[in-house]
């Protein structure tokens, strides 16, 4: 892609594992370059001394390598031709198709004026009660799955994406194994929805630092469809932990002082810049982000999930429930901050109280379980709470549930009546009068 005005240098002054230094003039901050054909970006300028970060690593780079400056920041060609295509981190096709023609747009563009945003208000049903009933998703929201690496997060995410009523699904895959990449491709194809899907994929075969471009690429495409075309766009980002790991590699190689868990001090801002692209626009277009943050042994105090939790509007916590053998959406640790905008408004009036009560009773069961494990006698209430918890987990929390929200509420009421008295349930009286299953007084 060499063009006439490009400046070419052939003498490197220094090389580290990820960066090279050279003397060059009139270089702009953030601009791209190629070093011996490898893509690089300007990360530091001090007088004539320019530091370039090479995405693919500096292995084999020689001091006489050719450096070509492009005069522009990383960009993507955006047009309707993006639909149905697969790209790498640089936005080049990996599906054998032609280059996309369209408007050349810098990635990582400006933020939406918070005053111009609209308040998210449209429920995204998924059929999964652990989500719809307890942690309802709303378009314009950003929410990650917190999951241990052995949990089927990519499958759940693909299911959610395919059930969601959206115009475009954009997959940003970072450090995906080739198997998972093919899994996504397969499930999108099988669902016959390939034309709605755009993928930017960095697999484990690719250099890790390249991953840093994936979210911005995916979100630039998302903004094209949401802003320019007023479409509802769902962006899937998996796995953001690997993205953050790449950030720490870079900051380490640039001699920055690490903060908690060897992560760069700017981790919060770096992640926020990505997640805050989720938006409901005044024109009706929207970007919803569902991400995956893998955990180490369920540790959410690690800097990556911790910072993520402060940025995103809740989190969906996947856990293996040993009592039922199912993977469930953990009702204690999961949260959708935007659910209050839709529950009881787009769903039935009893939604809020039913949700909270069921979780409270589920917590009672957890206490009873602790008592049992400590070898104490269980009260009648404890035993009923345990039975309730088991059935609640099986019939509602399990991720293989696929019913609508009214059915979820009915199911929960039935469980209340089956195991508890009205006093124990302690819900507002008018709701009890209306929804307590008849004939189970």
């Amino acid at each position, binding site marked *: 892609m060499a063009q006439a005005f490009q400046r070419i240098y052939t003498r490197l002054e220094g090389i580290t594992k990820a960066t090279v230094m050279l003397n060059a*003039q*009139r*270089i*702009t*901050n*953030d*601009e791209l370059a190629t070093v011996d054909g490898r893509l690089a970006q300007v*990360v*530091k*300028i*001090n*007088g*004539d001394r320019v530091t370039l970060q090479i995405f693919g690593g500096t292995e084999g780079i020689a001091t006489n390598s050719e450096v070509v400056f492009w005069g522009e*920041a990383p960009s993507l060609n955006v047009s309707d031709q993006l639909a149905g295509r697969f790209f790498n981190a640089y936005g080049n096709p990996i599906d054998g198709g032609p280059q996309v023609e369209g408007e050349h747009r810098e990635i990582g*563009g*400006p*933020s*939406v*004026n*918070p*005053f*111009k*945003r609209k*308040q998210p208000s449209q429920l995204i049903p998924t059929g999964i009660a652990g989500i719809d009933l307890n942690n309802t998703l709303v378009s314009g929201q950003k929410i990650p799955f917190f999951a241990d690496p052995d949990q089927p997060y990519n499958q759940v995410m693909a299911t959610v994406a395919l059930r969601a009523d959206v115009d475009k699904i954009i997959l940003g895959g970072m450090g995906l194994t080739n198997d998972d990449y093919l899994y996504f491709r397969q499930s999108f194809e099988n669902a016959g929805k390939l034309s709605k899907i755009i993928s930017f994929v960095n697999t484990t075969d690719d250099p890790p630092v390249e991953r840093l471009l994936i979210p911005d690429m995916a979100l630039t495409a998302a903004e094209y469809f949401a*802003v320019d075309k007023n479409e509802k766009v769902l962006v899937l980002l998996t796995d953001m932990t690997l993205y953050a790991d790449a950030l720490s590699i870079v900051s380490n190689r640039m001699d920055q*002082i690490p*903060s*908690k868990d060897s992560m760069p*001090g*700017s981790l*919060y*801002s770096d992640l*926020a810049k990505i997640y*805050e692209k989720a*938006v409901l626009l*005044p024109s009706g277009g929207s970007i919803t982000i569902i991400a995956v943050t893998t955990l180490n042994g369920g540790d*959410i*105090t*690690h*800097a990556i999930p*911790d910072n993520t*939790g*402060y940025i995103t*509007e809740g989190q969906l916590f996947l856990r293996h429930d040993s009592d039922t053998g199912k993977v469930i959406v953990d009702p*204690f640790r999961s949260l959708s901050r935007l659910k209050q905008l839709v529950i009881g408004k787009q769903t039935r009036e009893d939604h809020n109280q039913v949700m909270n009560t069921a979780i*409270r009773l589920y*917590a009672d069961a957890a206490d009873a379980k*602790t*008592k049992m494990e*400590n*070898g*104490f006698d269980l*009260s*009648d*209430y404890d035993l009923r709470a345990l039975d309730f918890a088991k059935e609640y987990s099986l019939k509602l929390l399990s991720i293989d549930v696929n019913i609508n929200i009214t059915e979820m509420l009915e199911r929960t009421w039935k469980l209340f009546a089956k195991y508890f008295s009205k*006093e*124990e349930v*302690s819900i*507002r*009286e008018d709701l009890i009068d209306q929804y307590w299953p008849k004939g189970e007084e």
Partner: protein
Amino acid sequence: MQTKTTGKVQGIIANLVTIEVDGPVAQNEICFIHLGDTRLMSEVIKVTGKIASAQVYESTRGLRVGDHVTFEGHMLEVQLGPGLLSSNYDGLQNNLATMEGVFLKRGEYTEPIDREAKWDFKPLAKKGDTVTAGDWLGEVMEGWMVHKIMVPFIMTDTYTVQEVTKEGSYTVDKKIAILKDADGKTHDVTMVQKWPVKRAITAYMEKPRPYKVLETGVRTIDTFNPMAEGGTGFIPGPFGCGKTVLQHALAKQAEADIIVMAACGERANEVVEIFAEFPKLIDPRTGRHLMDRTTIICNTSNMPVAAREASVYTAMTICEYYRAMGHKTLLLADSTSRWAQALREMSNRMEELPGQDGFPMDLSATIANFYARAGIVTLNNGETGSVTFIGTVSPAGGNLKEPVTESTQKATRCFYALSQNRADRKRYPAVDPMESYSKYLEYPEIIKYYSEKIGEDWIDMVWEGKNFVRRGKEAYEQINILGDDGVPLEYHINYWKSELIDFIILQQDAFDDVDASTPMERQKYMYTKIINVCRQKFEFDDFESCSAYFKKMINIFRQMNYSEYESEDFKRYEKEIEELLTEKIQA
């Protein structure tokens, strides 16, 4: 008149730019970097010889060595005047509402104060009066708020009023007074003045200890750990513990004249919620729109990091400005941790030696200085005004042993600890009744205030309630260790008494129309009732009948909380409680 200092960009790392300057330059001076036609606002944060380091309040993409820089000769300033209320600003006081397009444009700076709007001015001072900084010259009505026009805070000498404009409708730039200083030099005063945000406004006579309570309608705060007017407090908590919901509840319900909310490095949708909801909400005390008394300073997490720091200072300055008019202001900053992180990012880029967790060494002092700007003050004319400040802290990993939490704890008097455990059990607000404290409960001034305004025995009852909760917690631990049967029945009764206080007083449904906000009168009524129940001696056959009994009672009390105060439903439930109590006392 000195010519402006200029400079050339010499180096760039992220948003830290080094500039070679050709003249004098001050620490914290504002400068603009010219990128084509765009001017990027920056602040000098270090000077070494001819090289000034500046943090840029915008993205530095596309900057290059040699780009032209002009220095402004002043620190970061805000404009203060009528029209601040119900405005929505970014951290640098740009009006977000008047910006063009959906996206924020780099280098687009908008006027914070409407220069066209007319205000009905009424003079307060007259010719010959002696005045100084902060003295009231006149007033306008800003919505339903009286807005004093003051001697600018930078004019700290003594002046004689030479002329005050007569009553009339004027724009903010109209000269409304002429003041003469000791040397006979005259100064024109308009309705707008400028103030550098990093300096505290001290145009008042004295700052006494807080002596009044600021009602919030949140029971766990008002009843258990009250906030004083002019007091300071902070809310630390891991994510998902309801920090934001609690802050919004305070913003909606607190009994302040003016609320300034600084959304500092937090989620944009939370601010949108305020934008969307506040204009619809009515303040139950005044019957006015909540938005009319609210100013929002919004520097969300995706907006330029350097402006985060500015945003909390901007918000504080606006509060101090209204305090000088004799108003009761409340500043809510969410979250001060993001501000500290912004300081850390910059300190790191400047390669300063880091303190704990990579934060700058002077973090603790910076936080303490900032909280010290709050307070109730007596103005020069004897009136009072106040800035109450509640900040949130987002401790990394929910661990309170980290520098920002620890520094903030030293600087504040109220501590509202949000507990993950309570949040997991959906016990909202998740303020931990045992960990949290309000030092104001021990202030003789506040104790006096309570005995005069609420009741002689109120403070004793608060401590008594806390004790019931503590005893219940201890009982609960024993029950968990020894089992239901392994402890005396008394332990179960103690446990359930604390559950009663927890469910009926401490827990509150922020999404229920009635329960969301409880006026002090109702709090007093309910709390007295609950404490009276706790004082009773109960007898039960076994622990199961004890828990069944209290569950029933809690259920009825909850229905009471959901009913309008003193409504028929309310009284009906109250009667049910009486019956339930007599039943047990007779038995």
